């Protein structure tokens, strides 16, 4: 190694190498902090590249490390900024982990929803405990009847009217559990249907070569079906405020460990939140949603958000056995006609659209707003979802996919 034309002494060269190794380790730590998955093998390979002359040319080093250390498009796009910030001391714009049509910057000031939802989900582990026994335990000596009736009341109470933090927490827990039960049942039904059996001739012949070709052991073939996929679009605008917390827990329950599901949040823009929602611990999942901007009193641009979904995500997340579930009150501040068009485009792609509308449970509510009226022709099921009981009622509809 040379510096300014004069060769380095072995000692100096050693020192430079040690400094480089330390810098590299610090850089890898920076990347890990930014959610890059970098293992030992990658670290070794990166060191190998440094030792093989890549360290002398920044542009080449950046390109080489970029190929080695990124593994997703989102990481590929962020890498250059992080590299420049670390090695060249340039300022880097902080980006969130979520993507959206309007740009990936999250607004950390607006995280009231996630905070509120997270604070109400501190129960911790409540998901595993059946709701009734939980109430019984709390009810103590006052007996079984009171516990059961308390649950029943909670079942039928509009989420808006829940004020006691304990009730809210319990409603969240029940919503999550409900979702989990529905999920396993939906999956099981799917498997039962897959029992169409045909004889596999080739396999049978192969299996019976030892019998001289006489078909003694039969080999069967089973039709492979695409599992049902659920795509949820949740309206997180101000008008939905009272409901989003419960729905987030409900959707978290649906998505938890269920590969074939995707979730999006929207208010004035759309954000893909599946990875955050797949976090095992619901409190942590909601915490990660802290990255999701929550418009304080902002309107809802359903058409625009649906448009962004159709354009950027639909081809990837929708297949022929997909149910799209939109959870929204349908108050569109944008163009209602555009909403109709986007709904039509969406309806062409997926098997069925379910629209859950909390307002539908209110006395005297009729879907008169222009937005919801434009959307309804493309919706197979328009159902109320304002209480736990109404959520439970959904299951047979979803199973019929």
């Amino acid at each position, binding site marked *: 190694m040379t510096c300014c034309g004069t060769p380095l002494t072995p000692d100096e060269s050693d020192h430079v190498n040690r400094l480089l190794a330390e810098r590299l380790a610090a850089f890898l730590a920076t990347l890990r902090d930014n959610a890059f998955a970098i293992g030992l093998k*990658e670290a070794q390979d990166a060191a190998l590249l440094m030792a093989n002359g890549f360290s002398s040319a920044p542009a080449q080093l950046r390109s080489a490390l970029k190929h080695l250390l*990124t*593994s997703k498009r989102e990481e590929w796009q962020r890498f250059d900024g992080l590299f420049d910030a670390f090695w060249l001391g340039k300022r880097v714009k902080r980006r969130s982990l979520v993507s959206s049509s309007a740009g990936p910057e999250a607004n950390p000031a607006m995280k009231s929803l996630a905070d509120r939802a997270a604070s109400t989900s501190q129960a911790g582990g409540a998901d595993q405990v059946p709701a009734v026994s939980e109430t019984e335990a709390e009810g103590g000596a006052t007996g079984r009847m009171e516990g059961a009736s308390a649950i029943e009341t909670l079942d039928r109470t509009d989420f808006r009217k829940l004020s006691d933090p304990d009730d809210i927490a319990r409603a969240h827990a029940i919503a999550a559990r409900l979702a989990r039960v529905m999920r396993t049942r939906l999956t099981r039904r799917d498997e039962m249907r897959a029992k169409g059996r045909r004889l596999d001739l*080739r396999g049978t012949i*192969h299996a019976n070569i030892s019998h001289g070709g006489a078909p003694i052991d039969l080999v069967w073939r089973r039709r*492979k079906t695409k599992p049902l996929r659920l795509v949820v679009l949740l309206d997180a605008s101000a008008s939905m405020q009272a409901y989003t917390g419960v729905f987030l827990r409900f959707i978290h329950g649906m998505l938890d460990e269920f590969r074939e599901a995707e979730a999006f949040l929207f208010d004035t823009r759309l954000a893909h939140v599946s990875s955050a929602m797949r976090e095992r611990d619901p409190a942590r999942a909601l915490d990660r949603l802290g990255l999701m901007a929550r418009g304080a009193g902002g309107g809802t641009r359903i058409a625009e958000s649906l448009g962004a979904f159709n354009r950027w995500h639909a081809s990837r997340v929708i297949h022929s056995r997909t149910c799209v579930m939109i959870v929204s009150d349908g108050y569109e501040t944008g163009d209602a006609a555009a909403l109709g068009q986007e709904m039509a485009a969406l309806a062409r792609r997926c098997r069925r659209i379910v629209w859950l509308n909390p307002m539908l449970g209110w006395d005297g509510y009729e879907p008169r707003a222009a937005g919801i009226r434009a959307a309804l022709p493309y919706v197979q099921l328009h159902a109320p979802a304002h209480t736990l009981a109404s959520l439970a009622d959904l299951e047979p509809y979803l199973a019929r996919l």
Partner: protein
Amino acid sequence: MTPLSRSDIASRLVAAGYIPDTDLTTAIQLMRMLDRPLLLEGEAGVGKTSVATALAEVHGAKLIRLQCYEGLDQAAALYEWNYQRQLLAIEAGRGRDADALADDVFSEKYLLERPLLKAIRMPSPPVLLIDEIDRADEEFEAFLLELLSDYQVTIPELGTIRATSIPLVVLTSNGTRELSDALRRRCLYHYVDYPDVDREARIILARVNSAGASLALAIARMVEAIRKEDLRKVPGVAETLDWAVALTGLGVETLGDNPEIVHETLMCLLKTREDRSRITAEVTTRLLGRVA
């Protein structure tokens, strides 16, 4: 296969008709150095598959392609026994010693090599293209991961077969399914984007002999403008090349002078009815005005 220098790789890619961006040259250099497969991700039509073809040209290696699809299994990807011939052999060998017959029936003679087995048994390392890995099932992805780390397979009747040559592996994905982190981490990653105007013009010049430099640039600009329109199917590089061939075939020398021909030949770029109706003659004229 000796490691090539960056400039060697770049010039050989160009000679093979592939205009690389500087990043890709590094990626190809690293593949040999670190012995890792290269995972190419990007929209359909950005030229992921042609990277593999060009790579084979660069190293003077054979290209073996495995096209993935839903339900692809080991039998179709790795090896299969030729059951019909085995059956015939069994029929013909009635009365022979059963053990000898079994040994004969499960010998190389009756083994059908599929792309993966073929790739690791080549005398000199080939380029193995595993196309659209996101279409294959997760089980297959897991199996592939195992094969790519050990480069050996076990055929129960024959025993373990070790690779005689470690292929250069290129995987492509359109992102229809999320790939496992394990597979991603095993690979070098390269995101292939639509080429910028300058590179696309050079691609046109390299592939369409009859196109001049100014026409190639105009075509590349026009395609870039069309990609920014709200389309269902954004045209890829292959479509650009088709269009360039069509335009030069019709004797067009400047786009601005032939708005009608330009509009009529847009069918090379726009592949759905909606997109076709969205880009009306007026839109074409407007776009032409902007790029010309």
